[in-house]
C-alpha cells in the first residue's frame, strides 16, 4: 500500500511537470521594471493582450538593469524599460531591435517636509542635488542599477559629485516601493518616478520638493530582442506585444490610467507622437 502510494505520487509529480512543460508553448517573456508593475498598469494591459491574442505573457518585473541583462542573454523576448543610455548601447551591440517609445512620466525629488537642504527653491535639479550634497542631508538611493538609479547617478555625475562612500548617502538595493518606505521612515531625500510615488502616496509623508526639470523626464521604450542573435526566442509574440503597447487602444488606456484613483494620470502616452 505504501509502495503504491509512493509510485502514485511520483507519477503525479511527473504529470504535473509534463503539464507545465506543454503549457509554455505559446508564451512571451516580458522583462520590465518594477515601476510598471507596482503602479498596476501591467495588471490592466497584460490580461487585455492575452485575451485578444491567446498568448500567455510571463511578466518578470525587475530593475531596468537586470531586465537588460536578461535580454542580453536571450532570456526574455521583449523589454519594457526606462534607461535610455543603456538601451542605446544595448541596441548598438545588436541585442535588440525596433526600439519604440511607449510612454513617459517624470522623476521627482522627494524629501521631508522640513526640507533641511532647502532644495525647494533651487532653480534646477542639478542645484537641488548640489544642495543635498553640501548640506550632507540624508539621501536614499535605489542602488540597484534600475532606470531610476541610473538617472540619479547621471545627475551626480553631471554635477561632479560621487557620494558613493559618503555616510549621508545610503543605498537600499531594492525596488522603488521599498526605497520610498525607507526614505519615508528615515526622513531622507530620494529620487522616484512619479507613477510609483503617486501609487504609494497614501502611505508617505514625503513630499515632492523638486519637479518639472527637463532633466527629469522618464521615458519608457519597448525593445524586441534580436531574433538573429537568439534562435529560441519568441519573436513573433514579442512583435505582437510591442505593437500592442504602441497601438492606439493601449495608448488611450495609458492616458487615463490612474486618474480615477490618484487624481492624475501616472503615465503619458508617446507612441502616437512617433507615428506622426
Amino acid at each position: 500500500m505504501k509502495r503504491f502510494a509512493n509510485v502514485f505520487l511520483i507519477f503525479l509529480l511527473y504529470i504535473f511537470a509534463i503539464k507545465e512543460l506543454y503549457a509554455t508553448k505559446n508564451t512571451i517573456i516580458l522583462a520590465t521594471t518594477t515601476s510598471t508593475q507596482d503602479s498596476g498598469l501591467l495588471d490592466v494591459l497584460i490580461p487585455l493582450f492575452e485575451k485578444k491574442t491567446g498568448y500567455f505573457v510571463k511578466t518578470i518585473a525587475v530593475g531596468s538593469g537586470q531586465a537588460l541583462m536578461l535580454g542580453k542573454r536571450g532570456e526574455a523576448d521583449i523589454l519594457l524599460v526606462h534607461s535610455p543610455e543603456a538601451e542605446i548601447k544595448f541596441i548598438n551591440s545588436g541585442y535588440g531591435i525596433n526600439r519604440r517609445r511607449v510612454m513617459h512620466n517624470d522623476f521627482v525629488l522627494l524629501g521631508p517636509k522640513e526640507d533641511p537642504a532647502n532644495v525647494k527653491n533651487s532653480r534646477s535639479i542639478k542645484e537641488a542635488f548640489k544642495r543635498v550634497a553640501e548640506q550632507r542631508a540624508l539621501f536614499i538611493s535605489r542602488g540597484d542599477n534600475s532606470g531610476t538609479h541610473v538617472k540619479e547617478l547621471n545627475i551626480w555625475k553631471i554635477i561632479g559629485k560621487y557620494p558613493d562612500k559618503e555616510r549621508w548617502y545610503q543605498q537600499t538595493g531594492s525596488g522603488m516601493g521599498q526605497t520610498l518606505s525607507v526614505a519615508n521612515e528615515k526622513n531622507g531625500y530620494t529620487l522616484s518616478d512619479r507613477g510609483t510615488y503617486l501609487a504609494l502616496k497614501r502611505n508617505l509623508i514625503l513630499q515632492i520638493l523638486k519637479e518639472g526639470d527637463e532633466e527629469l523626464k522618464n521615458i519608457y521604450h519597448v525593445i524586441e530582442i534580436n531574433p538573429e542573435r537568439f534562435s529560441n526566442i519568441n519573436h513573433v509574440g514579442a512583435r505582437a506585444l510591442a505593437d500592442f503597447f504602441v497601438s492606439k487602444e493601449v495608448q488611450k488606456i495609458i492616458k487615463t490610467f490612474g486618474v480615477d484613483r490618484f487624481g492624475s494620470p501616472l503615465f503619458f502616452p508617446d507612441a502616437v507622437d512617433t507615428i506622426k
Partner: protein
Amino acid sequence: MELLIDSITKALELICNLDRETYQILWLSLKISTIAILASSIVGITTALYISSKEFRFKNTLITFINTGMAMPPVLVGLFITILLWRNGILGKLDLLYTPAAIIIAQIILATPIILGISLSAFQGFSEKFKLQMLGLGASRLQLYLIMIRELKLPILSAIMAGFGGIISEVGASMMVGGNIKGYTRVLTTAIVTETGKGNFDFALAYGIVLLLLSFSINMILTKIQQSSISRHE
C-alpha cells in the same frame, strides 16, 4: 495598530468572500509545497535509512554536508536553479523556468536536506541491539526499515514539519525561479512582497495571515498523526 486591525479584517474578508485571486494563490502555494514536501520526504527518509545502515569512509563529511544543506539560503538555491534552467542554460531545453514546476524543484532541494538531516539523526539513535534482534527473528531488511519508520514516527514527522515550514514560508527561490507571475506562479510569500511594493500593506498582511492559517492547518493534521502514535503505545 489600526493597520493591523484593518489587515486582520481584510484577511477574514478575503477568506469569507471567497476572493478568487486569494484562493488561487492559496491553492497554488499549497499544491506546490505539498508536492515538494512529498517528494523530499520520500528522498530524504530513504536516503537517511540508507546512510544510517551503512558504514563508509567519508560518512562524517557527508553528514556535515547534509547539515549544512539545512542552512541553505533559498535565494542561493533560486539563483542556481535559474542559471541551470535559463533557456540558453544547461537544462534550458526543458523550458521550465518561470513555471510552478520550477518552484517545486527549488523547494525539493531546500526541504530534502532538512528532512534527511533530522530523520538521519533519529535513525542513528535507533538501538542497534533491537535491529539485530529483528533481523535475528527473521525480519527482512525492508520489514526492518518499515518498523524503524513506524517506531520513529515522532521525529520523522517533526522532520517533515520542519521541512514544510521551511518551504511554505520561503520567498527568495520562489520569486526567482517562478518569476512571481500573476495568476500563474504567484504564491503567498511572493504576493506579500508584491503587495508591499505596491504599498498595499493591508493586503500584504492579509496574505501573511492566510499563510499562517494554512501552515497552522497543515501542522494540525501532521501533529495529529504524530501524537496519535504516542497514545497508542501507552
